[in-house]
């Protein structure tokens, strides 16, 4: 199987850009990042299909120098799916901007709450203190955890 070096380099660079954008907080940049990664993955399929040949159309060209049509069909499917998801993500970004005035991805409120409790070294608010426990089997291992 021959591999096109230019394609490999393009895939690498696109991927790197995509990952960089994905690590941003702004949702719009994340969308662009996923699009770049999606395109890089599509190029991987082109590489996987082997050496390029004639157009894979029956009765049009000889079977032997044809390109492999299956990866092209897969890439088409993948492109369509990526497009749909990107549209949905953009809608989310727009909705987020409508609600919050920006499109930054937020932290989870409950996570931060629990982290704050851990910082204060306090027990969770649902921690039972000394009340009669009808299901006592469960309490033992939990005590070991604390």
């Amino acid at each position, binding site marked *: *199987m021959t591999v096109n070096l230019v394609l490999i380099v393009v895939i690498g660079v696109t991927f790197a850009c995509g990952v960089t954008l*994905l690590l941003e907080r702004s949702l719009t940049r*994340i969308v662009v990042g*996923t699009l770049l*990664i*999606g395109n890089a*993955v599509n190029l*991987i*399929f082109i*590489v*996987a*299909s*082997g050496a390029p040949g004639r157009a894979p159309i029956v009765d049009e060209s000889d*079977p032997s120098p*044809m*390109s*492999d*049509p*299956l*990866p092209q069909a*897969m890439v088409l*499917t*993948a492109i369509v*799916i990526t497009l*749909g*998801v990107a549209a*949905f*993500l953009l809608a*989310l970004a727009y*909705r*987020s901007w409508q*609600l*919050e005035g920006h499109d930054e*991805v*937020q932290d*989870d*409120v*409950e*996570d931060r*709450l*629990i982290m*704050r*409790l851990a910082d*204060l070294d*306090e027990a*969770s*608010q*649902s921690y*039972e203190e000394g*009340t009669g*426990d*009808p*299901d006592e*089997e*469960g*309490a*033992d*291992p*939990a005590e070991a*955890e604390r």
Partner: protein
Amino acid sequence: MTADSAMSFLIPLPVVLALLGAGVCLAVGHNARAQRVISFVVLTAIVGIAATLLWAADRDGPQVVYVGGWPARMGIVLVADRLSALLLLVSAIVTLSVLVYSVGQGIIEFGRDTPLSVFYPTYLVLVAGVSNAFLSGDLFNLYVGFEVLLAASYVLITLGGTGPRVRAGTTYVVVSVLSSMVFLIAIAGVYAATGTVNMADLAVKLQEVPEGVRVVLQLMLLTAFSIKAAVFPLSAWLPDSYPTAPAPVTAVFAGLLTKVGVYAIMRVQTLLFPDSPLSDLLLWAALLTMLIGILGAIAQSDIKRMLSFTLVSHIGYMVFGVAIASDLGLAGAIFYIVHHITIQTTLFLVTGLIEIRGGSTSLEHLGGLAKAAPVLALMFFLPAMNLSGIPPFSGFLGKVALVQAGVDRAGWLAYLVVAASIVTSLLTLYAVAKTWNRAFWRPRTEEPDEVGEWVPSTGTKSGEPWGDTVTVTSVRSLPRAMVAPTLTLVALGTALTLVAGPLFGITERAAAELRDRTPYIETVLEDGSMPGDSAAGEVSP
């Protein structure tokens, strides 16, 4: 169509009917009543079809259909073996119950700021995606199945577009998109290495691929599926995104979506990579998933979040069974999947009822429900005990099978995971008992919070399509249409104990079939067998 069995015409129907139903639902978007009837009829039909398929697959072996009449290796095949058919049946029953529940919840009637006609079509598309993933005999079609169910789940998880849901949905969508990308890269790699994406064909051809390449492909597939199945360390997205969605949506996600990932792991591990060198890695993943998930559950003070963490934790049991990969281990894992789909869905539905009855799902605001709503208390207690594995419930039976399989495997790592699974079971009991005590047992109190101000946790207080009339003090009677399906699922989960013998028989035969591999491969390749004219990277004319 080159079907050699009478039943194979049924195989595409769960996908086709669901998609058709979704289309018709969209067409009659102005008429909620028609949408409900169509959805109900379609899902009932799928339950019947799945039961027939399970019966046929158990009697005659795997059922195959070559979509479009293309021979195997050329086109897409759909395969219903015992594992696929069993999971299809359970998921169909669960989705049907959740549909009835959501009708009762009145997402459609009472919503104001939701594009309302969207719920039923999307729900049916979700069912189509799940069915397609279970039935697919082709790696790329499995990807398409995943994408269909994910796309539907994106819409459902952000239903109404409120702030917390947009926040949770963003995490969910981005993580899912990434896992799909990893899956696509793996498919490209598999195709480059073997020249096929047909799973039966791959099972043969991957044996000729060099060991190193095979391990890389396996790792990539496992990574992609582990994100979807929420296996630690790829599980952090789940407890963040699930709790904010409407109760029926969370219930069906928790029951089904992660299990589709587990199913994919199981299928790939048994069919494509038997005797893999990565089973120790999977054992570690199972160990950490169980322990870290359940420790997260203990720290939560919201029932939905607590349940989301136990969901992650109990995925570990299934991965444990897959990692052992003995007959008993796989049978136990399949049994556990069936048990867990039912129980986890039930618990989330009950939580939805608690929210209506008690006005909140936060443990600080609940209390005295055992006296106020004894039936509700029973509906929570039974599946909760079932989840934590109290004998004689099915959770106990599944865990016993897995522990037995772990002990049979021997070795310090297996013993360690067995110990962890028992500790996890006890800690699950602690987590649900704590919830039980706070929400149901203790008298109702309205204490001020000691630790700072209380921040509304999951966005289910206000701005929710139907939830904003519920206040902390509201004591409503529960709509019968919501209680009935929940009770049905509670009864079903409890009845799993009664039918455990026959059910375990089926899962044992399914596990034997998975380990044997030849029935699957021979049934799929028999019809389209052509002399090896499809070498790597070339097209067969």
